[in-house]
């Protein structure tokens, strides 16, 4: 019995889990079904909500699109990033200049009696010529400096000559209206000296510039300037240059042989008129220059002058511009005049055929030009200019050095032979846009006693970044 009962108990014990397992399984299945149903409901609900949300989003998007289309102006809270090609690359421009020239005299014989020429004082070649190709690059260097370089390419007959006309740095952050420029640059003396040839109103520089500054004076140096905090424009400045270029000849001083001071004033009269006047002084110390520039006589005639001494130049300039209501697009007028006075003192060495004579030389030279340029309708301008130069040079022979004293006095370039060079110019130009210009110019040139009738048809084309023009 005991055995039986034990068996029964063990069977029950063994069966119990089986029975309860079956029950559990059924229960679990039921629960899973329930869960599944529940989840399905939930998922369906979620799906519905998702669909609704998606629909809303699409609606919102299309509404936003519609709103954007309607508004057309997207209002940005912060500065909109814009593509500026020249933020990191320097602004680059290429200027092409060329001309067709006709002269009634030989341009190789060009001279200004009484003046020792140098620099770029000669005439462009006769016929079709490529005058100058200018490559200009400029940019802010950083928060303190701005720099610009102008590289001029021109033919000198044998090949292409590369010249660094300008390569300078300007300060941007000096306080109290001060500014510093260093490197190679066009001096700020006079009005036209710093103007690049593509911005000239005539094809060539006035005779005074040709005679006294070799067309334009550019050199290595430092410039300090100050703009006054006044309603009237007042700019004062001074420069010191190496002085190795015309009108200098040799650099002997650490701080340079050429110094300048200048003052510029300017303002408006009403809304249609504006003006600028300037006064400049240039001191050239210990000049040592010989008269062989671009313009000289025949190669086999070896006569030449070499000047040593000091040369001081004073310039007064005035520019007056008129444009109705200050709007120059249709019509405008520019009146411009400059007066130069130069005093030179030193020795002249006259050389001919291996012999040389020494002369005492004191020169008082002056010159002026006045010009009027009128734009009478959009794109068309006409202009007239008058030039005059005069010299009163004292020459005394110290040592004739084997040459005939009379011949020396006769042949030196400082002898003007009583002739005062003068010139009349007329021009008409057409500028289809601010980037191109085609010009016809006539010069009635009495630089020498014989009149030279000069005709020029010229083009100026600017490619790329077009720098802003000064007043």
């Amino acid at each position, binding site marked *: 019995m005991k055995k039986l009962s034990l068996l029964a108990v063990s069977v029950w014990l063994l069966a119990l889990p089986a029975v309860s397992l079956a029950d559990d399984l059924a229960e679990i299945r039921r629960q899973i079904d329930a869960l599944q149903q529940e989840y399905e409901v939930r998922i369906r609900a979620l799906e519905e909500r998702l669909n609704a949300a998606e629909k809303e989003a699409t609606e919102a998007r299309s509404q936003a699109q519609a709103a954007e289309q309607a*508004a*057309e*102006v*997207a*209002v*940005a*809270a912060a*500065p*909109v990033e*814009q*593509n*500026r*090609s020249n933020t990191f690359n320097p602004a680059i421009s290429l200027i092409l200049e060329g001309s067709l020239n006709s002269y009634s005299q030989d341009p190789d014989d060009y001279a200004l009696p009484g003046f020792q020429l140098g620099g770029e004082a000669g005439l462009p070649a006769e016929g079709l010529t490529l005058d100058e190709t200018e490559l200009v690059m400029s940019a*802010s260097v950083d*928060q303190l400096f*701005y720099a610009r370089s102008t590289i001029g390419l021109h033919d000198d007959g044998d090949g292409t000559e590369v010249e660094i006309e300008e390569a300078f740095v*300007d300060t*941007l*952050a*000096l*306080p109290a*209206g*001060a*500014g510093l420029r260093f490197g190679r640059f066009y001096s700020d003396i006079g009005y036209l000296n710093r103007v690049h040839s593509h911005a000239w109103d005539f094809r060539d520089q006035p005779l005074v510039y040709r005679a006294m500054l070799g067309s334009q004076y550019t050199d290595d140096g430092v410039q300090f300037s*100050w*703009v*006054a*905090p*006044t*309603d*009237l*424009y*007042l*700019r004062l400045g001074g420069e010191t240059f190496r002085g190795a270029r015309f009108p200098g000849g040799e650099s002997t001083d650490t701080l340079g042989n050429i110094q300048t001071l200048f003052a510029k*004033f*300017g*303002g*408006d009269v009403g*809304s249609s008129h*504006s003006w*600028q006047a300037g006064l400049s002084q240039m001191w050239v110390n210990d000049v040592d220059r010989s008269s062989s520039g671009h313009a000289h006589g025949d190669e086999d005639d070896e006569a030449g002058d070499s000047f040593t001494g000091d040369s001081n130049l004073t310039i007064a300039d005035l520019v007056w*511009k008129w*444009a109705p*209501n*200050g*709007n*120059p*697009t*249709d019509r405008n007028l520019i009146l411009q005049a400059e007066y130069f006075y130069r005093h030179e003192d030193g020795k002249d060495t006259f050389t001919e055929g291996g012999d040389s004579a020494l002369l005492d030389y004191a020169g008082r030279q002056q010159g002026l030009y006045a010009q009027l340029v009128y734009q009478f309708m*959009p*794109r068309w301008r006409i202009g007239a200019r008058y030039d005059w130069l005069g010299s009163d040079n004292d020459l005394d022979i110290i040592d004739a050095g084997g040459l005939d004293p009379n011949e020396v006095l006769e042949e030196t370039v400082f002898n003007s032979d009583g002739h005062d060079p003068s010139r009349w110019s007329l021009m008409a130009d057409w500028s*289809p*846009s*601010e*980037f191109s210009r085609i010009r016809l110019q006539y010069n009635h040139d009495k630089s020498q006693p014989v009149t030279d009738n000069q005709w020029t048809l010229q083009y100026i084309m600017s490619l790329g970044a*077009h720098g*802003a*023009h*000064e*007043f």
Partner: protein
Amino acid sequence: MKFVIKQLPFICLLLLSRLATAQVSVFACEPEWAALAQEIGGKHVSASSATTALQDVHHIQARPSLIAKLRKADLLVCTGAGLESGWLPVLQRRANNPAVQTGAVGYLETTQYVKLLDRPAQLDRAAGDVHAQGNPHIQLDPRNYPPIAKAMAGRLAEIDPQHAGDYEAGLTNFLQRWASAMDGWQVQAQPLQGVQIVVHHNSWRYLAGWLGLQRVGTLEPKPGVPPTSAHLSKLLQQLQEHDAAAIIYSSYQNARAAEWLSQRTGLPVVELPATVGGNAQAEDLFSLFSDILQRLLAVTS
């Protein structure tokens, strides 16, 4: 000398008081920005404009008087996007004033705060005077002013922190008045929707965008190129087939081309102020837009 020493404290006081009342000098390239600065800054600001509504902003001279003015300026506000590239860089370099150099707090370019339209896909000068960043004549859409006003108020507060609260108040006041004025203009301008116009220069792009005007022709053959007879006769032919409501030009533009076309087509010519000061009615920003709307409604209704 004795007098000077005796009066020194007084002179110092005078100088100090002058400093305390010193106004922020705003040099605006265009009259609309000078007007906006005055609206926001009120008595703390003295604003002047380099150009007038009678001048073509693309082409003015970098006059000495402008250099002198920029030398003393605390804030330079210009349109940018190349509109002033023919003269502004010279003024900035010649003025020797570090406060208004590009990148400084004192230089605000308004086109940076709005979306420019008509950004050219191709940059070639053969297409005329194109602006790489888009059409810069943003001053003719009133919706462009609020973001610019906010930027300007921020700069004024940065330059003159003493009166930051006043600039904030000036801004809020301006924005409120501007919003209500815009509501009024929007209602007024309903009839202009879809009206077809011929313009002199594409300077009316933003006005057209705002009012829903449709440009059907431009007197200039290419942006910045003066109207030619060949282009005008082509336009005339086009207009005979395709009707328009009016020919629009600004106060600074030559009226001859518009009048020539008007005589042949019978279309009315409307001279609109391109900015504040463009005519006797456009005294400030509010009257500028009211006047433009009135003139347009007068010829189209």
